[in-house]
């Protein structure tokens, strides 16, 4: 469990509304208004996207909207910085592949000559 229920200095987290959202169609819950990235982290999701060139996984890196590593497709819009975008009820979050929601078909990757 990654949520901190009680903190020695900050005390207990204030009451927030639990909302439902989806990640790649899978239903998850998080607190309204917290960053999408925080809700994903609490749900154990590490990979936010796969890069365009090398198809490598990326997740949270700076958590303050600077590095743009944590971008995902949110309600159809790609490149949304999930670390600074507040979670709303019913949000549709998708893992981003390049800038698309279409997972890479690694087998179909072509070689240098453009052949499949």
């Amino acid at each position, binding site marked *: 469990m990654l949520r901190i229920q009680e*903190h020695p*200095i900050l005390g207990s987290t204030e009451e927030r509304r639990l909302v439902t959202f989806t990640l790649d169609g899978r239903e998850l819950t998080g607190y309204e208004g917290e960053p999408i990235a*925080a809700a994903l982290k609490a749900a154990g999701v590490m990979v936010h996207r796969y890069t365009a060139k090398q198809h490598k996984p990326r997740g949270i*890196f700076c958590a303050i909207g600077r590095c743009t590593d944590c971008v995902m497709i949110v309600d159809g819009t790609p490149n949304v910085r999930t670390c600074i975008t507040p979670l709303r009820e019913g949000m549709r979050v998708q893992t981003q592949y390049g800038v698309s929601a279409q997972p890479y078909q690694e087998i179909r990757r072509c070689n240098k000559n453009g052949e499949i």
Partner: protein
Amino acid sequence: MERYDLVVVGAGPSGLSAAIEAAKCGLTVVVFDENSRPGGQLFKQIHKFFGSKEHNAKIRGFRIGENLLKEASACGVKVILNATVIGLFRQREVTVRIGNEIVHVKGDAILIATGASENMVPFPGWTLPGVIGAGAAQTMMNLHHIKPGKRILMLGTGNVGLVVSYQLLQAGCELAALVDAAPRVGGYGVHAAKVARCSVPFYLSHTIVRAEGEEFVTGVVIAEVDHSFKPIPGTEKHFEVDTICLAVGLSPMSQLCKMAGCEMTQAPTGYAPVCDKTGQTSLPGVYVAGDVSGIEEASSAMIEGRIAGAAVAERLGFLGAAERDERLKQYEAALSSLRKGMFAPENRGKAPKKTEEGLPISMNLLQKGYMDEAELEAYPGMIHMPGLHPVIECTQNIPCNPCQDACPRGCIKIGADLTALPSVDVSKSCSGCGMCVASCSGQAIFLVNEDVGEGFAEVTMPYEFLPLPRPGERGMALDRSGTPVCPCEVVSLRSAPAFDQTNLLTIRVPAQMAGRARQYRVGGAV
């Protein structure tokens, strides 16, 4: 186009302080911040600050932030959040993105208080999810109440690395190791000591060789480095961790200054605008304050903000020159007292061998994060006497003196020099109130009674972890390295509003452990 007397970019400690100072002189001030909350990094700082009263010493960062916001709102400062300044142009015209609109605003003066951004260091696997900046860790745990990971390795032993490490422990994370390529701990010794006594091993002269994992971090390999910072084959060490945290320094976020056309310079802490003592850049009416003009602490950033605010007020005719000079004199004195000691800007990169008092600096502290009992004996805060007395394990000259003000009986003395090491006046008797323990931002003060009878001693220590131990409970006493030294019994746990969340834990240990027991671990397991 809307016009303000002063437009401030960034609602962090320096930006808010400048806005407050200017607004109090009668200027109309607007502060833009791209974040959804004001306060910059202050609200992630849950530790008590160093300094003296005038620097808000012994107050936790987030409370300083709350006070600044209250003050700003009371004097009519308009703080606009989710407002990203995207450009600064000629004639002090600023473009701001607010919502889905670009708004143009003009200021008779502009203050750029954009702060800093984190430096990063590449290594194989550094793009894997699970490798994060130290700021990200702070944001996640202290703002969003999410642990960044379960088991973490920290790279960097500067104050950011040390402070965030301790905060990770407070949040309930496990810390596998603290690693730094430098041969010495970069941050304050007291910050290192409080992490070390929680059993976190320090690996100085080590670096990360690679992060392991396919989809996310599953482990990390570190190795010792030679004098040219190259890993030495055969010295590799492996840790199973799910998170690697990078705290390898900060750089001024000065892009806006550069774009505006300010003269820039390559300062020791990064690329920063050239400015005078008041923060005035080469562009008339464009000022800078805080980390953007050179990396320092939030405490200095707040004073720099006040200075810039007063300077702007004078420039625009809201403050007489004499009154401005009076204020600047006061602020500059406060600032220069913070810039003294071993960690002063002019000592950056140097390694003093002796304190101002001529005492040898402990190499153990700099290499392992903690001092030997024998080494400590040389320091004026280490005393032995019958009955209850404070023991002050503060061994570096840092600008801080709340302990002196905290003792109602005057047992603790620092003197007029803020960086002097605290000493204990053995002619005065300690009441055991514990105010010194709670007031020490470095958590370096303990109350010790070396003989409470039947061969036992009692040690009172600052305790900022959960669950809170209960009187009568039995646990383990740890020494300064975090090694369990003996079972112990909890005598009392005191909490009071004046302690500000620092609990005072008193444990009973065998008398010979009075000088060694410095941390408590719940449960008896070694």
